[in-house]
């Protein structure tokens, strides 16, 4: 079953057909979503009524185009804002954790490492509700004892950021640690023996070396945050991020405007994906 071992022609044909079918299965839903963004009809379904760009650019109801839909544009902004914070926090904690676990030895290190991995095996919905319960407990306590109204700790964008950060930080830690493990500490020592302080050495030698991993982790973190649904659903406040807004529209049934939005998202994540492949490539 490897190329060097002859197999009957029919086997190859069948196997090839299976793999082709698999890839059709993989891309079909995405293609359909993209194509119907241009259908001149009120619903994202057949029949095909001709090509239109209304679902992107038409300024008024009922054929409101994406770029004139204030509510959707606002939710894109909310998602962007959340994703930026989550990325920033996760990268900062990820770098700190990488140095902690790769450079230091301390009691219970393995236990802490296991704990650090836990957020990946906890379902997102449960991460969401546990943070919701805990923050409400604190908020209630603050209100009852001090009379302080802690609106931040009620479902809000702030909680969404914390909820997403709670597991994306693990992913950033893993990506950055993997790169730091390959770093030759002699380079840092060389910088120090040339007169750099430890902090300067890390900043000018180690961090640049980590850059591909940091950028890669940042892209993954940004996308995971932007597309997160499960954790966000439980913590969302009055400002709806994009996934929540889209979910609402999907349930109501929507015009092909949603297809236009989806196509835009695919292009955005596709270009980010290409960027990350490009960045990871020069990791020699």
């Amino acid at each position, binding site marked *: 079953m490897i190329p060097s071992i002859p197999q009957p022609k029919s086997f190859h044909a069948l196997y090839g057909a299976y793999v082709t079918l698999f890839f059709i299965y993989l891309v079909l*839903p995405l293609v359909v979503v993209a194509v119907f963004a241009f259908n001149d009809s009120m619903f994202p379904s057949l029949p095909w009524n001709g090509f239109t760009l209304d679902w992107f650019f038409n300024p008024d109801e009922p054929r409101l185009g994406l770029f004139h839909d204030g509510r959707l544009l606002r939710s894109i902004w909310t998602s962007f804002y959340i994703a930026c914070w989550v990325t920033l926090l996760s990268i900062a904690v990820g770098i700190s954790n990488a140095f902690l676990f790769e450079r230091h030895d301390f009691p219970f290190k393995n236990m802490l490492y296991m704990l650090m991995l836990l957020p990946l095996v906890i379902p997102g919905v449960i991460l969401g509700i*546990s943070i919701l319960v*805990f923050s409400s407990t604190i908020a209630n306590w603050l209100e009852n004892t001090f009379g302080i109204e802690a609106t931040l700790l009620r479902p809000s964008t702030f909680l969404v950021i914390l909820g997403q950060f709670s597991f994306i930080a693990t992913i950033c830690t893993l990506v950055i640690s993997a790169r730091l493990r390959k770093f030759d500490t002699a380079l840092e020592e060389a910088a120090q023996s040339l007169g750099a302080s430890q902090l300067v050495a890390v900043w000018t030698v180690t961090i640049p070396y980590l850059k591909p991993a940091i950028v890669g982790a940042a892209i993954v973190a940004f996308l995971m945050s932007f597309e997160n649904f499960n954790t966000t659903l439980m913590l969302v406040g009055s400002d709806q991020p994009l996934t929540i807004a889209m*979910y609402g529209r999907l349930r109501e049934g929507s015009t092909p405007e949603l297809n236009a939005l989806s196509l835009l998202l695919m292009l955005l994540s596709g270009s980010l994906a290409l960027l990350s492949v490009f960045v990871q490539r020069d990791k020699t």
Partner: protein
Amino acid sequence: MSLSLRSAVRLNLILLLIPVFLWLLLLIILPHIDMLLVSTQVKVRPRVYEFSFANYGEFFSEPLYWRTFARTAIMSIAATLLTLVIAFPVAYYIAKMLRGRMKSFLFLLCLVPFWVSELVRTFGWMILLRESGVFSNLFQWIGFADGPVEMLYNDATIMVGLIYTSMLFMVVPLVTILDSLDDSLVEAGYDLGGNAFTVLRTIIIPHAMPGIVSGCIVVFMLTLGNYLTPVLLGGKDSLWFTAQIYTQFITRFNWELGAAFGFLLLFLSSMIVWMGLKLSRQTLTETMG
């Protein structure tokens, strides 16, 4: 090591420990402890709570709850196994039958669904499968069906969506591990008189075991915790346990019961992960890192 250097290292260590402690304590450990506490409380009067396991009792006495739970678990296991069976030949094809550009291209193509939001993917399936959808029209056009066919809102559709969403997390570890299998081992198997089946059973699968296990664990967890796919593709009757948790928390505002449900789901997911690791004699650190 001089004394000042040692204290510098110690200061470093403490500074690096602060973020990880804050993160894990405030966002993971304390919230789960609090959720456990809330799940063991029962409201006796408005604003008055008592310690009790009644919420867990309600789960076992109300058939809807434990049936939904069992159904979610069984369907997740089925989805995981199906994903494995479908993905394995594809991963093998990419890892062993292809070379060069085609290989990296198809591997990247497998990653595509990961980069696209789950909402968009599910939306695609809805357009394909609904009554006025692409497949329904196609079947009528070919003559398979006389009228519109509704293919949404049943278990098979939920399954298709779940497998689709999970595929990547199975293909990637499988391709990685199969790539590391030396071709000469397979050749040796044939030289010693093995056929395709025995080579697969005694050489390829044992070699791929770590990849199979980590793929299965990730897929199972993601499926069990999935919310969007069952709810959107299964409609009202999807009966997925995460949807039940959402109902208790957000719709009914019964946090105590919802927290108990959350713990049961967490327990099930941890048990299966733990069993998977034990069966394959691996550790969490190896599988995830």
